[in-house]
Each structure stands twice: as structure tokens, then as C-alpha cells.
């Protein structure tokens, strides 16, 4: 284990395995970059060879296309993130600090929802969105994102609020009263 240990067979075998794992991990990505700089004909005829002259047209095409999709992603992600943060912080606080009837039941429901993989709910989700006439609108993506992502967030927020010392909350309340 120490630095001066003799380099045994297992040492070399494990290092070779490691190098093999790294090389095979990166092979597809290297090929991706390689292919991105070649015209289509060259990919078919000379797959592994490096391009003699980078074929930048691929990139100019990709860049001219990618603007709108990225804007869409930003809009959807930003909107759902905003709502998620709002919802998660409030309900996390409620679950951690407030006492109300049915709290344990509601939290149990939340955990149960977490157990259901999102794939399984896509069919009913689609139908709900269709009934709400939201198909082909941003909201059809934003609302399900909020619904599915908030569950884990509420757990996190609840744990965070529970870890905070009670004094902080008391102090905040007292200050209000004054």
C-alpha cells in the first residue's frame, strides 16, 4: 500500500484496466468531435482518420439552429425553477415547523409520489394537459416539471428547516411582535 511497495502483477493489471476504462470512456466523445469537423462523405470513407482540414460548415449550421431551442430551454427551466423554489421553500417550512392536522398523512403521500417513476405517469399527464388545452404551450412542460421536481425539493427543504435551531425562528417571531 505504501509508496515503495514492490510493483506486483496486480499493480500492473489494475493500472491497465484503469487506462482501458478511461480510453473507452472517451472514445465516443473523441469520435464525436472528430466527426463534427468532417463532411459526411469523409465520415463514411475514412471514419477514424483526422480531418485534414476542419470542416467548419457543420458548426455554422449548428450554431444558426441552436438559438431558439436554447431560448426555449431557458424559458421553461427558468419559469419552473422559480415556481419550484417558491413552492418548495413554503411547503418545506410548513412540513418542518408548523403543526397542522393531517401533516403526517400529507407527507406520506409526498413520499409515495416520489416512489412512482415519472415515465409511468406520462400518459395521464398528457391527457390532463390536453383537457386543460395546454398542449403545444410552454405550460404543458412547466407544470409537470413543477409537479414532479418539487417533491424532492420539499424533502430537502424540510430537512434544512429542521436542522436550523429553533431559536432563530423564535427570535424572528419576537422581533415581529415588537
Amino acid at each position, binding site marked *: *500500500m505504501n509508496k515503495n511497495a514492490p510493483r506486483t502483477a*496486480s499493480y500492473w493489471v489494475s493500472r491497465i*484496466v*484503469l487506462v482501458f476504462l478511461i480510453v*473507452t470512456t472517451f472514445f465516443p*466523445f473523441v469520435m*464525436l468531435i472528430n466527426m463534427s469537423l468532417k463532411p459526411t462523405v469523409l465520415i463514411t470513407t475514412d471514419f477514424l482518420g483526422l480531418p485534414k482540414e476542419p470542416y467548419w460548415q457543420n458548426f455554422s449550421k449548428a450554431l444558426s439552429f441552436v438559438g431558439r431551442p436554447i431560448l426555449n430551454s431557458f424559458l421553461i427551466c427558468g419559469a419552473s425553477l422559480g415556481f419550484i423554489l417558491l413552492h418548495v421553500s413554503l411547503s418545506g417550512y410548513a412540513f418542518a415547523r408548523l403543526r397542522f392536522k393531517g401533516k403526517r398523512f400529507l407527507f406520506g403521500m409526498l413520499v409515495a409520489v416520489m416512489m412512482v417513476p415519472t415515465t409511468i405517469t406520462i*400518459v395521464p399527464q*398528457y391527457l390532463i394537459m390536453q383537457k386543460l388545452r395546454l398542449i403545444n404551450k410552454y405550460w404543458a412542460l412547466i407544470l409537470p416539471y413543477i409537479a414532479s421536481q418539487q417533491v424532492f425539493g420539499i424533502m430537502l427543504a424540510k430537512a434544512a428547516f429542521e436542522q436550523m435551531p429553533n431559536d432563530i425562528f423564535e427570535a424572528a417571531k419576537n422581533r415581529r411582535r415588537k
Partner: protein
Amino acid sequence: MFRMSFRNQAVLSLFAVFNSVFFPLLAALILYHVRHKKLSRIIKTLFVIPMLVPSIVVILIWKYLYNPNFGFNSILKLLHLGSLTQNWLNNADTAPMCIILVGFPFVSGMYFLLFHTGINSISPELYDAARVDGATSMDVVRYVQIPGVWPYVKIVATLSLIGSLSGFGQVAAMTAGGPGYSTMIPALQMYKVAFGDGRHGYASALGVVLFFVIVILTLITNKVLSGKGEKSA
């Protein structure tokens, strides 16, 4: 057809769980034994970098590699094994294997990081004790590290099982269940029945069945793996 998709799914999930436990664990274990601090940090970073690439991009790269005109076939031709070239994804015999092998060697990503953390959180005293007892590094792996990361193995096995049962993006992008139904899996079938045929009731029933299968399999996995953990610990 329904039964066939479940059989495909069983094979796929079996390999998915094995791959996502075995290879990242192997890499993390070897990485721990790399004593050179700087080198091991570089290797760790190398394994984490592919996480930045969206999964659909990875899947599409692999789809290109399976292309009949270039990709692996070009490599085989280069090795003078031209007779082995084939239309990988359009052959019912090779398509399932091709889907399983997507992402080889399966190291990069979340599971590797989990194992890495797990191994590093084993307390140093255990290593010292092992060294005092004259353990070789193989012994350390066998009796200290494997039991030490076993809780992480459990988590990763469960997560990858659920992931492989409920995710159909990979199969949908690679073969869309074809050729024929040779790579059809229940989740993809559900999607196709619902949005291809418009039979939402049937699709929902498939979803319910799939959900119960996932729950039962998750429980079984947990039972089996926790039993093993106690034995080796």
C-alpha cells in the same frame, strides 16, 4: 408481444444493474489504490467530465457508432474483419446486445461518484488494522472495501434497476423497439400504445402493471442485497 417486451426488459435490466454496479465500482476501487494524489485527482476528473454531456447526446453518438456505413464497421474493416460487419441495430440478434453496450464502459457519472465517496468514507483505522494484520491490497479490497461500500452498492443497484425499468429514451432513440419487437420494452410499448395508437386505457393499464413490477423488484433487490451485506460484513 407483451410477454416478449418483459423478457427483453429482464435481460436489459439485469445487464444494466450489473454494469452500473460492477464497472464504476471497479474504477473507484482501482482509483483508491492510486497513491499519487495529483494523478488520482486527474483520473477522477476525467471520469466525471462525460457527466456534462447530455444523455441523449451519448445515445446518439452510440447510434452513429452502430451505423452500418461507418462507426464500428469501419474499425472492423480496418482490422481486416470485414466479414463481421453488419447492420447492428437492424438485426434482431445483435440489436439487444447493442443497446446493452451503449455507454460502455459505464464508468462515468453519478454511480462512480457515489462509489468514490463511499470508499473514501471508510474509516482509516480499518485500513491500518488490515495493514497490521499483513493484508495484501487484494485482501483490503475483499474484506475492508467491499463490505464498506455495500450500502452504496445497494443504492446504486436499486437506482439503476428503477432507471432501466422506467426509462425508455435509450431504446426509443436507438431502435424504437425494432426490428420487429426484438428490443421492445414495456415502458416504450406503453408510450407507443398511448401516443401511436391513441389507446390511452391500455397504456395506463401497462403503466400500472409496470409500476407494480418496479415496486416488487425493488423490494426483492433490497432483500437480497441486504442479506449478502450482512454475510460479508
